[in-house]
């Protein structure tokens, strides 16, 4: 049999070879009643069963997969999803047919969307449809995939992907599908190659036994000739070697082409961001946002809760420095019961350190938790939105008082060095006047306050440019102040991860950049090219 070449679109990179598993939709039969009330009750029970099943799965996982399943739970909990189904049940249609009719209308609505991302949600609704049908019919309709195989199908649901074991290789080749689908996101996260949009998978007689999937080029070869297969396997060996080299490079310290050592730190918004990360990819954590602790649903967190989380982050860092920012609420981050509602201009209002000093009873709890955590690693504490030296001084007095009180009670603690965010132009211009243990430049707010332009207002977004000479001049001034005072300075805003700005930022004299974990490898690659 001649080999079959199909060209589609790359959805997840990588090369794979394996036996082909064809996925076909399972058809389940169900004995329906002719009583609409019974049918409606059966559908209600099936929806609840599907919802409970997914909610149970979520308990064991976190991150992106949990988000995808939480979306399905939210849809199933919403009565609006089944309204049309209940309507046709009341006129005598069986529960399974009614559900299928209603969901197929919903699915068609997504498939007709202009935006590719919304078209890709069709697979999620198919998943929801099939899960409920499985509960209605009392059978398992989620297709089983054998580990290491190349799955060939029209499309594939997140449930089918999650039910399979991808740890032994394997890949996905779809006639339809989308690079924006949840399965594509999952495949990229797990390193499973995936190609979509191959067109109809029609075979003359026998389905193919073996396939080569090229998730970089977006192509698939079914039943390859021996020579084709040999060349493909050679490419796989070379690609695996290159991948190992790139991974090793992201674990190595960053140097510019002319030999300057640049420290790369992480910005994190929650301790979960560190799950499955190797601390060796960074020189420490440059920014831990603590707003997540104060989300409205949880209320204000007590000292022990905060202490436990700070300690966990310090222990993850294994002796690398960790900079935790005290609560930066207000502005675009309101917190119920804490921030002030109805300010005419919240970005120029009671936010950051201003709010903490105005609500000392909340601030003192955080300072105590930080002082207690400080004995578990190298902790630095950073104050947001500092404009004048007395704000730092007042926070320092409060920290000293809390440390003294803890010591008096015999509770283990240490006084972490207190540094400031440089994000208000006034602080950048007079950085030398602050008795700060370190400076951390918050380029997002520094840019918006310097340029008087918000980045989420489309009409002025192009003015919100961290590379503007005025913003760079303030960064230079801060770096200069740090040099004169012999204290550390870093930059932790989005500009640090913008590799178009890397050369300009390093030219200011900065030697420490702090970025989101996902952008570390890209930043290190960009740093290696600076000065070449």
């Amino acid at each position: 049999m001649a080999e079959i070449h199909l060209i589609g679109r790359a959805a997840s990179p990588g090369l794979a070879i394996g036996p082909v598993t064809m996925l076909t939709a399972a058809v389940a039969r169900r004995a329906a009643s002719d009583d609409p009330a019974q049918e409606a009750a059966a559908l209600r029970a099936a929806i609840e069963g599907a919802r409970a099943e997914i909610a149970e799965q979520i308990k064991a996982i976190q991150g992106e997969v949990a988000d995808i399943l939480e979306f399905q739970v939210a849809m199933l909990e919403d009565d609006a999803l089944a309204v049309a189904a209940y309507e046709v049940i009341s006129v005598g249609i069986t529960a399974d047919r009614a559900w299928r009719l209603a969901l197929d209308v919903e699915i068609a609505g997504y498939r007709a969307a202009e935006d590719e991302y919304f078209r890709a949600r069709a697979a999620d609704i198919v998943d929801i449809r099939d899960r409920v049908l499985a509960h209605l019919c009392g059978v398992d309709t989620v297709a089983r995939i054998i580990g290491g195989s190349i799955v060939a199908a029209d499309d594939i649901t997140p449930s089918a992907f999650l039910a399979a074991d991808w740890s032994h290789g394997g890949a996905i080749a779809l006639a339809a599908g989308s690079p924006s689908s949840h399965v594509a996101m999952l495949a990229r996260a797990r390193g499973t190659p995936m190609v979509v949009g191959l067109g109809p998978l029609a075979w003359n007689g026998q389905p193919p036994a073996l396939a080569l999937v090229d998730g970089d080029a977006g192509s698939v070869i079914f039943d390859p000739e021996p020579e084709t297969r040999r060349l493909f396997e050679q490419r796989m060996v070379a690609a695996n070697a290159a991948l190992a080299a790139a991974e090793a490079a992201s674990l190595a310290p960053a140097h510019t082409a002319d030999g300057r050592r640049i420290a790369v730190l992480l910005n994190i918004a929650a301790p979960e961001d560190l799950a499955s990360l190797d601390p060796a990819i960074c020189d420490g954590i440059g920014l831990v946002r603590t707003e997540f602790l104060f989300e409205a649903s949880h209320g204000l967190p007590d000292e022990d809760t905060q202490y436990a989380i700070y300690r966990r982050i310090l222990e993850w860092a294994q002796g690398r420095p960790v900079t935790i920012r005290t609560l930066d609420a207000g502005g675009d981050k309101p917190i119920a019961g804490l921030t002030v509602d109805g300010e005419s201009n919240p970005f120029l209002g009671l936010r950051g350190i201003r709010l903490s000093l105005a609500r000392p009873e909340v601030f003192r709890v955080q300072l105590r938790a930080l002082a207690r955590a400080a004995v578990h690693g190298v902790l630095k504490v950073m104050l947001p939105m500092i404009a004048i030296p007395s704000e730092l001084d007042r926070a320092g007095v409060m920290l000293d008082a809390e440390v003294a009180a803890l010591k008096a009670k015999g509770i283990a603690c240490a006084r972490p060095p207190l540094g400031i965010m440089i994000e208000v132009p006034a602080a950048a211009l007079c950085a030398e006047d602050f008795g700060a243990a370190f400076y951390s430049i918050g380029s997002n707010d520094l840019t918006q306050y310097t340029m008087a332009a918000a980045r989420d207002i489309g009409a002025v977004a192009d003015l919100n440019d961290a590379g503007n000479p005025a913003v760079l001049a303030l960064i230079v001034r801060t770096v200069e102040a740090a040099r004169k005072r012999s204290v550390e300075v870093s930059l932790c805003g989005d500009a640090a991860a913008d590799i178009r700005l890397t050369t300009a930022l390093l030219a200011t004299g900065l030697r420490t950049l702090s970025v989101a974990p996902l952008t570390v490898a890209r930043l290190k690659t960009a740093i290696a090219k600076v000065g070449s």
Partner: protein
Amino acid sequence: MHDVNPGRAADAFVPLTASAVLVNAVGLHARPSVKLTQCAKRFAAKIELALAPDGPWTDAKSPVKVMRVKAPQGATLHFRVTGPDGEAALAAMLALVHDGFGEA
């Protein structure tokens, strides 16, 4: 806070409106829709959203209906809020959108 009788119907309140641009990468998609509806449900006020200042209005507490809006990145999201905790609800909705649903 407002000096109101909580038993009064939502329509006894003047509707509050405001708008914000969707800045997160792929618009009001699955995860943001879930976040937005979860946040909306914390308020007693009736909360609706639309892609145009004059509607059509969609119940911001229903993820199924919010997803049907298919609001892409760069779209302006209009909110109309009616109820006793309307101001806080509106502020929370706008903050969520401004913040890119925490995905920026």
